[in-house]
């Protein structure tokens, strides 16, 4: 009655016409993705670092003035300028600076003559601890709230979560921080309102010092994650492939966590990727509020003293982190949405 069954021929994939091992395919996909990301990130990085560097040249300050103040004679100024290489053309200085930076040398402070890289190495862990803890809180709290709300769409719980998120987004972090201090350090003196201890020295104390600032820092991100995840997940749960998984007899937990969440996480990840650099760059307020000896504090002090190399160094590090986070987020997004790979070509 009908023609004989012919074995189906698979679609030729992009460029993998002949039998190539799967690992090589994957490497090629990854390589081109990375290449594309770098092609955009590198020029951007160069420009922003140049702006950072050039900023210093606008300053009226110079090493002699910074150290000697009014006592600096023109001879002193010239001598110290030469010592710090400041009498060369701007682009040359920039090039020297950036190439040295790639080797880990960020110059020396005009004030303390401590290598900038060392100062940063000392203070960066504080920022990283704070940001990491804040991100963790945001992910756990926001994720849980978002998922729970998505699983009961339209319920009172869902509406309560949405309302709470709206409120949390309006209140600035330093207000929350102050509020937390009032409640937990003044009214119920349970937690300290300032200071820091490295994790390696005393984990418990580390947590006690960081929990309030991390909470304050994370609240806005938590609200965003919760709201974004809830909306994504509600939409994803209506898609056919969720029905498909249910029809195959997979449990609710597996369907939600192994399938729906994977697909709904994309926009949430974008939010995270965007906010993480903000978190780092903007932790200044929280660090000041809670007296944490981080990189932002370093920058603040340097700004007050017009210690240019330190300012340039910290900005450079911050920019690098931002760009790294960007590349990472892009990479994860591509992995989560393989169908987008085609279009991004």
């Amino acid at each position: 009655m009908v023609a004989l069954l012919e074995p189906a021929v698979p679609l030729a994939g992009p460029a993998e016409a002949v039998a190539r091992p799967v690992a090589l395919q994957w490497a090629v996909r990854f390589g081109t993705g990375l290449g594309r990301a770098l092609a955009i990130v590198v020029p951007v990085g160069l420009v922003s670092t140049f702006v950072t560097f050039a900023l210093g040249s606008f300053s009226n300050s110079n090493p002699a003035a910074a150290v000697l103040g009014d006592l600096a004679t023109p001879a002193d100024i010239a001598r110290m300028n030469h010592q710090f290489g400041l009498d060369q053309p701007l682009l040359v200085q920039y090039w020297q600076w950036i190439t040295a930076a790639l080797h880990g040398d960020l110059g020396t402070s005009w004030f303390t003559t401590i290598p900038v890289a060392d100062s940063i190495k000392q203070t960066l862990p504080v920022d990283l601890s704070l940001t990491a803890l804040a991100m963790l809180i945001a992910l756990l709290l926001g994720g849980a709230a978002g998922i729970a709300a998505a699983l009961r769409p339209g319920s009172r719980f869902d509406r309560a979560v949405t309302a709470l998120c709206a409120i949390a987004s309006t209140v600035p972090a330093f207000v929350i921080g102050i509020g937390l201090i009032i409640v937990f350090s003044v009214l119920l003196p349970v937690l300290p309102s300032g200071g820091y201890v490295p994790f390696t020295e005393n984990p418990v104390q580390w947590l006690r010092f960081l929990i309030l600032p991390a909470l304050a820092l994370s609240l806005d991100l938590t609200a965003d994650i919760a709201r974004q995840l809830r909306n994504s997940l509600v939409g994803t749960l209506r898609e056919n492939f969720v029905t498909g998984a249910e029809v195959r007899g997979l449990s609710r937990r597996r369907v939600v966590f192994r399938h729906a969440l994977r697909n709904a996480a994309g926009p949430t990840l974008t939010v995270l990727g965007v906010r993480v650099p903000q978190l780092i760059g903007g932790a200044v307020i929280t660090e000041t509020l809670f007296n944490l000896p981080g990189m932002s504090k370093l920058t603040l002090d340097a700004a007050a003293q017009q210690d240019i190399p330190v300012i340039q160094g910290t900005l450079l590090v911050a920019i690098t982190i931002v760009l790294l986070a960007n590349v990472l987020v892009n990479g994860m997004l591509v992995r989560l949405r393989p169908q987008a790979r085609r279009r991004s070509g």
Partner: protein
Amino acid sequence: MTALRRALQLRSARISLGLLVLVLLVGIFGGWLAPQDPLAQNTAAILQGPGSGQWLGTDYLGRDVLSRLIDGTGRSVFGALEAVGVAMLLGIPAGLASVVFGRVFEWVTLRFVDSLMTLPFIIFAVAVAGILGNGPNQAMLTIGVLLSALFYRITRAATLGLTSAQYVEMAELLGASKNWVIRVHVWNKVLPTIAVTTANCLAAALLAVSSLTFLGIGVQPPVSTWGGMLASDLNFLSQRPWAPVIPSLMIILTVAACNALADAIRDTTGVSPTARTGITGPAAGAGSAQGIGPAQGIGPAQAGPAQGASAR
């Protein structure tokens, strides 16, 4: 401004606008409204609670809190306005131009704007303040320059969507000059989008100003600002634990009003600044407590870092 008129049909918009107008009035006439001299110290009566003559009590130097609050409103509000003004002046023409002036200009400005957005906001503002001097104008200028990136993107996205719209083609076919088309059609559609962004940016700028003044950047004591008051209140929390509430409330309410206005305009005119630039969800509200945080496109998957007036 039909966009605004339409938005005012919503009650939330009317309340928000009312509040903003009130704040603005206080900002303008603050000097005359303040019951007492905001700078007058009275060391005999420091850290008092609310009482006769000082409705909100006194601070650590005996100065009347209410007067300081009223006086500081102008500084915070006009600082934010200045920043947004700079942002619009730089960003909007650049955005329009990037669509009209060809691919090279477009690519260059795009990458430049990307770079602007990788600069960590507050640290950068602090750095500029340190280098160029710690005056209010420098700080606002910095915020303005960084915010302009947002206006650039929004304007560009809205214009891009429109120049290929069919009615623009029709108008050109019918003989209208390109300039006229831009003026009449493009502008009328782009304007609501800009209005929304402006409202959101105002909120963001206000937060930025508060954050910077909290850190002592942009103004010097003894002059009062909302952020500055919060900073000094911190030192005396045990004596007056409720002191931070008032300036905080001012900040929160004004920011919320700006955002609510933005939402109202967006809802009633159907513009979606999110649609084309790929900004997702709440991150699009460039006036959330974090400040600007749209997912701007750096890289293939359209996710990029954006620095905002992060009030952290």
